[in-house]
Each structure stands twice: as structure tokens, then as C-alpha cells.
């Protein structure tokens, strides 16, 4: 029992580390700097200035927080998708499906490093906001804010796992990833309140990660009581768990179908 637990933990951690190193295409100094550091900062500047020109200079915090939290999607969607779907072009999907290793650990491990990496990205963006755009986190409950960032990154990565599984069926992961990434930018209350959307889009928004996480982050930074924020965080965890389970089911189902048809790595 203990041996099995240790073995699974090793598999989870090693799988997380190895998949991050081997399958995350932006893991080189220039790619990381440009895509994971500078591009998010530029995104914050663009939307903060655009937003300020629409709603006034005093509203900068709204855009900085929204976009900083939304950056979790960069790791959560693209990073996790790459860590799942790049198995196929790398020619290792067949080997992966051939091992007796615990699938849940293998699957979950794909997201682990990206959750940490995503959180790092959010901290970086918030720091930029504090230094250059006068973001004030003086009233924030910092441990609760960190928990909120973790929960949001987990939920976004869970969606990334689902998309990664689906992308095993496609040739082009970037079209799918970009559609979801930009869709979330519009739908999740990143730059304007969700209530501005038509009702049917508000319903879609409530089923996506980020929506509650961004609302919770804004509330925490404004100094809201934890009791007001906790329901949002619980909701975000729930959304994340649903996507995680869906992703695992799709991954498992694909494995069965691929083995039955003998079409493991066919494009």
C-alpha cells in the first residue's frame, strides 16, 4: 500500500517535471522571456490604457488585476495542452499508452508544473502593476490572494487538460488553444463586468474557469471579507474538478479507442 503510494507520487512528480522539460515548447530563454514574461506585461499595458481611455484613469486597478489573473490561462491552457498533446508529434504517445503506469498520476502530472509556472506569471504581472500602474494591494489578505491565484490556476489548468486530451485528435493545437484563450479574455470578466454580456453568454461565462477567480481576486484586493470570497473560490474549485474529470475521461476513452483501432499516432 505504502509502496504503491510512493510509486504513484514518484510518477506524478517525475512525470510533471519530465513533461514540462520535454514537451513545453516555450521552455527556452528567449521563448520564455517573450511569451511568458513580456507578452503578458504588454497585454496588461494594452488593456489598462484602453480601459482607462474608456472608463477613466482611476479604473486602472480593474484592468491590471483582471489581466494579471487571466495570464494563468497562458500556462493553464497552452502549457498544459502542449504537455499532453505533444506526446503524439514526439512519437511517444504509443509508449505512454503501453506502460502499466497509473493513468491518473500520468495525466494529473501534466498540469502540476504549469500550475506553479502560472502562479509565478501572475505574481510577476501583479508586481508590474504595483510598480508601474499604481496597483494597491495594501488592503488585500495576502495568503487568501495566494490561495485564490492557486485555485484559479488549478481550474484553468484543468480546462487545459481537457483541451489537451481533445487536441490528441487534432493536428493544430494552437487554433483550439487560441480560441479558448481569447474567448476567456472576452467572457470571463477580465476587462469588463460579466453583466455587460448577453444572458446566454453570461451562462457560458459561469461555466468557465477564471470568472470566479478574477471576481474573487478583485474582491480580495479591495479588502473584502474572506466570507464573501470563499463561495467564489469553492465555485472555482468545483469548475476545475469538473474539467479535470472530463479531461481524464476523454484521455482514458481515447486510449481505449486508439488501442482497439490500432491508430495510436495516426494523424
Amino acid at each position, binding site marked *: 500500500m505504502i509502496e504503491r503510494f510512493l510509486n504513484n507520487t514518484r510518477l506524478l512528480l517525475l512525470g510533471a517535471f519530465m513533461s514540462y522539460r520535454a514537451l513545453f515548447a516555450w521552455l527556452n530563454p528567449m*521563448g520564455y522571456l517573450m511569451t511568458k514574461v513580456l507578452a503578458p506585461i504588454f497585454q496588461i499595458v494594452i488593456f489598462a490604457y*484602453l480601459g482607462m481611455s474608456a472608463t477613466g484613469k482611476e479604473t486602472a486597478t480593474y484592468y491590471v488585476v483582471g489581466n494579471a489573473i487571466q495570464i494563468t490561462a497562458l500556462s493553464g491552457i497552452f502549457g498544459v495542452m502542449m504537455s499532453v498533446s505533444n506526446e503524439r508529434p514526439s512519437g511517444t504517445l504509443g509508449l505512454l499508452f503501453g506502460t502499466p503506469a497509473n493513468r491518473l498520476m500520468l495525466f494529473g502530472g501534466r498540469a502540476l508544473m504549469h500550475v506553479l509556472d502560472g502562479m509565478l506569471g501572475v505574481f510577476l504581472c501583479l508586481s508590474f502593476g504595483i510598480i508601474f500602474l499604481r496597483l494597491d494591494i495594501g488592503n488585500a489578505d495576502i495568503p487568501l490572494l495566494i490561495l485564490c491565484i492557486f485555485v484559479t490556476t488549478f481550474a484553468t489548468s484543468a480546462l487545459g487538460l481537457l483541451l489537451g486530451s481533445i487536441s490528441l485528435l487534432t493536428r493544430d493545437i*494552437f487554433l483550439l488553444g487560441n480560441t479558448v484563450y481569447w474567448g476567456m479574455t472576452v467572457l470571463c470578466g477580465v476587462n469588463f463586468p460579466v453583466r455587460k454580456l448577453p444572458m446566454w453568454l453570461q451562462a457560458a461565462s459561469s461555466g468557465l474557469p477564471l470568472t470566479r477567480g478574477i471576481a474573487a481576486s478583485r474582491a480580495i484586493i479591495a479588502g473584502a471579507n474572506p466570507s464573501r470570497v470563499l463561495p467564489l473560490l469553492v465555485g472555482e474549485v468545483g469548475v476545475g474538478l469538473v474539467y479535470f474529470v472530463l479531461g481524464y475521461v476523454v484521455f482514458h476513452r481515447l486510449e481505449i479507442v486508439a488501442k482497439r483501432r490500432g491508430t495510436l499516432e495516426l494523424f
Partner: protein
Amino acid sequence: MRKAVNIIYTAFIMQWKMRCVTPFSAIALVLSPLAFLLVTLFLFKEEQGNTGLMRAVIGCGVIGVWSSVLTTSGRDIQAERWQGTLELIIASPASLELSIIGKALANSTMGIVSVGLSFVVTRFVFGQSITISHPTEFLISLALLIWSCACLGLVISTAFTLSRAAAGFGNGIELLVYILSGLLFPITLLPRWLTLFSYPLSLTWGMQALTRSAGVDNASLELTRSWALMVLLGLMYSGLSHWLFRVIDKQLRSSGEMGYQ
């Protein structure tokens, strides 16, 4: 001359056909500009006729032109290398430069899709009124912007081929140019020192010309001056890329690593 035009035209048509079936085109021409446009429209939802809105709507269209140029022109020569066709092009009597000029023009003109999409969504989905005060001047500004962007695409294409480090800049500079060129908000909002980097970009003058001819921004430069600057910068980009093409040609032939990836 006729032969050169024929090569450019053939490359132009081929590139259009290829890009029409590439999923990546949908990202640069539709997804990304549409996301910026929707955010802009929801931000300015209650403000009919706001000049900031009109500027951003035009800017969202121009985003498509720039994204298309950056993401595709940056990889055009590399794509030939990956497909194993670079050796054939270099060895053929038709020059690589002419072929890439045709492709760059195709990449840039495809941006018209984004400009059209931007206006259609704003007018028919969001019901916002769109008035272009001087349509002829607007079209001339758009044509010059597209041409100068194609010239900029040639510089990007050659620079990304010569330097792997430069190719890594792609993801970062896309959004940086949105900021520096004032595609979504006026560059006057930026710190003064930062605007120094806006001036060598033809997109900056293109946006000024477009907003001025649309009647949005009367404070910007006179149209003719913006046009002249776009032409000047376009010629400078062309001159620079011509020199870079010669460097590439020499390197490819002397190193013997033409297909090396």
C-alpha cells in the same frame, strides 16, 4: 520587369491559397482581432459615437494586418527550409527575394479581412454607427499601410531567417507594436521616451492617417505628411530587406547549410 511581376504575382496567389486553408490564418486574422474588438465594444458599450471607440475599431482591423505580417512573413523563408523547397528556389533563376515579396504582399493584404470584420461586427452586431469622413483618403491610407507593412514583413522575414534569437522575439513584439503604434489608444498617453520607438514604425503613421481620414483624430498629423512618412519608411524597409536578402543568399551558398534546421 515582366518576369519579375509574374514571379511576384504567382507567389502572391499561391500564398493566398495556402493561407486560406491554414488554421494559423484564422488566429491572426480573425480570433485575435475579434477578441480585442469585442473587449473594446463592450468597454465602450454605452458610448455612441465615442472617438476612442472608433479609433479602437480601426485599430482592431489593423491588428489583423500586423499579426498576419508578423506571424507569417516571419516564417516564410523558414517554411521553405522546413518543406525542403529552399534549395530549389535558390537554385532556380527566379530570385528568392521576388518570391518572398509576393508572399509578403499576400500576408499584408489578407489583413483586409480583419479590417472588414471589424467594421461589420461593430455596425451589424453591436449596432454602433460608423462614419468615415473621407472615404477616398481612408482607402489610400489603408493601401499605403498595407504596402508599408508588406515591406516591414520583408525585413522581419530576412531578420528571422538570419538570427534564431530574432525569431524568438515574435511572440513578444506582436503586442509591443500594438502599444507603440497606438493601434488601440493614442501614443500621446505613453511616456514621451517610449514614443521615440513609435516613429520608425509605419503602422504609427498608418494609424494616424486612418484615424484622421475617418474624422476621429483631428490632432494627428496632416494626411499627406503621414502618407509621405509611410512611403519613406516602406522604401527604407525595402532597401534594408534587399541588403539582407543578399546576405542570406551569400550565407546559404557559402555555408552549404541551406536545408539545415
